[in-house]
């Protein structure tokens, strides 16, 4: 097909500045991969902060990691892997024109994302309650001066009073001011990394919902499934980041 300038030939989804659907698809995909590159760099600054700090204070990471729940972290990993599978299956459905399966897979992916955020909420609220926050936060038990820590938090926080006895982890009240400052940096990195990742999960949910609407409105066909393909690629990146976050944060001995 030869497309002359500004004349609308071919299928409805083909924009006039592209020769063919294939060219349009490849351009979109190339653009998304460049976007994923910037996403990797976006996270890389936090990974550098993590690496610098862990290499200086390995003992702080081993100590603070005991306050993260490995089971919840592993559950979240499994949930995200499952969602990656369903979204990859969704791309196959879109390519083959299996509309009902595609709708099902997108909904399962969204449910997995919601489950991930639910578990994340449980973890965050537990940490807030325990005062396991970065040093500057009001509820934190990691203030540099223990007299600045709220009495209300000291009273009910197991981390402050007992530590993790079964893991032989000292109570936070027995740490020196310097040690508390160091642990507060671990939690600052933890919340930045998981928080930025969580924002990506939420953005992914919005994206997948928009794609689902497109599918329901019959805008997705085997000839034009670019939104599904690109949305899936973005979702896989969210999964990739978590694959590294899980062992780096939760699995430190």
């Amino acid at each position, binding site marked *: 097909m030869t497309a002359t300038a500004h004349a609308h030939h071919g299928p409805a989804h083909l924009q006039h500045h592209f020769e063919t659907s294939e060219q349009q698809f490849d351009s979109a*995909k190339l653009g998304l991969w460049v976007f994923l590159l910037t996403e*990797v*760099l976006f996270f890389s*600054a936090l990974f550098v902060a993590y690496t610098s700090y862990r290499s200086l204070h390995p003992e702080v990471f081993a100590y603070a990691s005991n306050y993260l729940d490995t089971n919840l972290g592993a559950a979240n990993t499994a949930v995200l892997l499952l969602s990656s599978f369903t979204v*990859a*299956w969704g791309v196959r459905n879109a390519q083959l024109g299996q509309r009902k399966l595609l709708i099902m897979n997108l909904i399962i992916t969204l449910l997995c994302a919601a489950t991930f955020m639910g578990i994340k909420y449980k973890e965050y609220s537990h940490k807030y309650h325990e005062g396991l926050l970065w040093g500057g936060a009001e509820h934190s038990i990691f203030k540099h001066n223990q007299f600045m820590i709220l009495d209300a938090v000291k009273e009910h926080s197991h981390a402050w009073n007992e530590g993790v006895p079964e893991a032989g982890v000292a109570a936070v009240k027995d740490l020196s001011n310097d040690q508390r400052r160091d642990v507060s940096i671990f939690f600052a990195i933890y919340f930045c990394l998981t928080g930025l990742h969580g924002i990506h999960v939420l953005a992914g949910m919005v994206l997948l919902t928009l794609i689902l609407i497109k599918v329901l409105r019959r805008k997705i066909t085997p000839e034009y499934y670019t939104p599904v393909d690109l949305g*899936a690629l973005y979702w896989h990146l969210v999964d990739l980041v978590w694959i590294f976050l*899980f*062992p780096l944060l939760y699995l430190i001995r």
Partner: protein
Amino acid sequence: MSNHDSHEEHCEHKGPHVVSLGLLATVLIVLLGLTGLTVVTGKMDLHGFDLAVAMLIATVKASIVCLIFMHLYWDRKFNGMIFLFAVMLLGLFLAFGVLDLGQYQANVDAYRADQIQP
């Protein structure tokens, strides 16, 4: 749409590659298995190799996701190159960060010690 599992080098583009459901399911099972493995090895004492083993498993998992779920194995090579480039930049960033830290941390510590003395 073309649906062929054995695909040769991508010189000419013959429509999108459709990954078989069996392969996708196998990948999911392998990924879940590797997650279990990393939890188990994370609890063992590997004599200083803990982090290396955890990162090796994570890298294997990430590679499988990239190659199969993200279609990079069948995709145009240029897309894969872009992603490899991102990983290389990350490596460069990390390497220079660590080098800088090794070089100057002693100065920072000395400065801090001075501040506390008087």
